[in-house]
């Protein structure tokens, strides 16, 4: 299998300044030496809680932010080295699907104009008739039928689920190779999610797209993804085939995460004895320790002394934890 995206030691820091009458600056590592590989014709799931850096990684892969360190290869070429013209070509081949169906469409621009823009910018050779045809065809692929009646609508005239389909249409119309889908269903009603997820799977199966699917919801992620990476405070702590991750989680954080998922089974009532302790907030300040050390029930001294290596414990199953040394 060929890789489409390869990140190498990608690190991104945010600096915040605060303090009372004396200045302190603190650095938060949103991405901390991240190495992931996304293959062609694959949906790669990225899960983590809010603030874990998963969206930052999505933006980095599309070169929408600057990095402090590391490189990201797209078909073997570092996208952070691209010059203006090459960057334009890169933009043509990558796209993004957004979380918020209300904020991802300009309210004063018609559906036709929103969806046709990438086509008009990247394929200037197409005639207006061809553009209209392609827009209609794409809208129908994402289930907006008959497409005609949507072209002249404004986003306010459509439901959340329909808007999200428009967002997908916009992302695929210029035929990109790789798409980042950032929490594409988390703001939709439960009954509408399934169709959107199935459309994404079809993009892979029928149009051979590669995708990074970012979510905080493991159930949803494993439904669409071939492989899953788990992120915690800017670090990838575990990565593997999605079925394997769910059945056989290795990292203590992944285990907690999977244990905490609500399952639609009334026989699995939650146990009220296992009340967790106090919650505290931690950020990755770039210390030389395991990012989960502060919360881990299996924490050892060594966890605070160095960072665990990210190693292949079983075939295609990677984990960063001293328990598997």
């Amino acid at each position, binding site marked *: 299998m060929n890789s489409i995206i390869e990140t190498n030691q990608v690190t991104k820091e945010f600096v915040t300044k605060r303090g009372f009458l004396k200045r302190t600056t603190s650095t938060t590592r949103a991405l901390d030496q991240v190495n992931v590989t996304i293959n062609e014709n694959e949906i790669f799931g990225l899960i983590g809680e809010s603030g874990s850096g998963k969206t930052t990684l999505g933006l980095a892969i599309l070169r929408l932010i600057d990095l402090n360190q590391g490189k990201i290869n797209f078909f073997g070429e570092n996208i952070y080295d691209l010059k203006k013209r090459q960057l334009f070509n890169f933009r043509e081949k990558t796209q993004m699907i957004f979380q918020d169906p209300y904020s991802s469409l300009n309210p004063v621009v018609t559906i036709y104009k929103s969806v046709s823009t990438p086509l008009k910018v990247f394929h200037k050779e197409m005639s207006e008739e061809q553009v209209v045809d392609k827009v209609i065809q794409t809208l129908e692929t994402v289930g907006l039928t008959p497409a005609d009646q949507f072209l002249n609508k404004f986003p306010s005239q459509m439901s959340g689920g329909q808007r999200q389909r428009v967002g997908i249409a916009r992302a695929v119309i210029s035929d990109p190779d790789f798409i980042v889908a950032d929490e594409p269903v988390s703001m939709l009603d439960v009954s509408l999610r399934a169709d959107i997820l199935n459309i994404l799977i079809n993009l892979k199966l029928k149009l051979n797209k590669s995708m990074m699917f970012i979510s905080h919801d493991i159930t949803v992620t494993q439904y669409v993804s071939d492989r899953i990476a788990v992120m915690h405070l800017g670090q990838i702590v575990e990565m593997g085939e999605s079925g394997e991750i769910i059945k056989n989680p290795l990292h203590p954080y992944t285990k907690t995460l999977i244990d905490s998922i609500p399952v*639609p089974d009334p026989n699995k009532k939650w146990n009220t004895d296992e009340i967790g302790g106090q919650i505290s907030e931690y950020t990755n300040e770039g210390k030389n320790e395991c990012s989960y050390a502060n919360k881990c029930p299996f924490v050892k001294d060594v966890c605070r002394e160095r960072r665990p290596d990210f190693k292949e414990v079983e075939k295609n199953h990677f984990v960063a934890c001293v328990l598997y040394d």
Partner: protein
Amino acid sequence: MMSFPLLEVKDISVEYGVDGKTIKAVNHVNLEINKGDVVAIVGESGSGKSTLAMTFLNLIEKPGRIRNGKVNYRGAKGVVDVLRMRPVDLMRYRWKEVSMIFQSAMNSLNPVMRIEGQLRDVMIEHGTDESLVDAKIDEKLKLAGLTTSIKKSYPHELSGGMKQRVNIALALACDPKLLIADEATTALDVVVQRQILTRLLKLKQDLSLSLVFITHDISLVANIAEIINVMYAGKIVERAFAKQLFENPLHPYTEALLQSIPTLEKGTAIKGIKGTPPDLSKEIKGCPFADRCPKMFDRCLAEPPELKNVGDNHYVSCHLY
């Protein structure tokens, strides 16, 4: 033995007047909550679940209004209708008898007041002895799983999870009999969500609370609730014990909802429900789910179904039964 409901909602309807249209958010709903129950109300956005919960505290405000119905509460002095209480009594009833954790934890704390102050004012106004207040503040914060030192903080200094715990501490401040949690954990991460919900269940056991969970997440209620109400378009369409509802869903909406959620077992395909919920500002003649229902037949369009007991306290509002 006859059991008396702690809170009994009778035939309640709530409307909102927006832009000259009247939206029927809650439409002739009946509901009972017994002492010690853990009841869930599940529904998608716009189903009226939060509006229904607001009536328990008589908190519907303009542009909404309660069209008809009663909310009977069984207190120390017998049964009273919350909607017809004198303002003074209503003030005493709120929080002391029934309290609530609101969905918007981020915004439901006063930004310019320390946590301590927000616990103190409600305790004092509900008659807690001044000398006991400090100890009680510490006690409630601990119950909610917080260190007492955070009482000196302002809300903006706390994380989302901590704010939501402050809201739990607040909800417990006056030792209520019934606690309503309205999407109390929706904005939180799953790990924190589980910590908070198990804590609530534990508190329910220890303090003999009744709990009402309001959520859009049907998987979640399976793990926590005993009785589940499914709401759709302002009506309760199905009510059953959790086990029955998941093993034998009767209403086509419930069935479709359960088929639309992914599970951890690989290989089961999911499918969405086609169409959109009805426009509640328009008159609906038949069943509100009719135009999305795969089992729809003529009668569904003509007359609205009633919520009927089809045995074993399994209620459903569908012409199929």
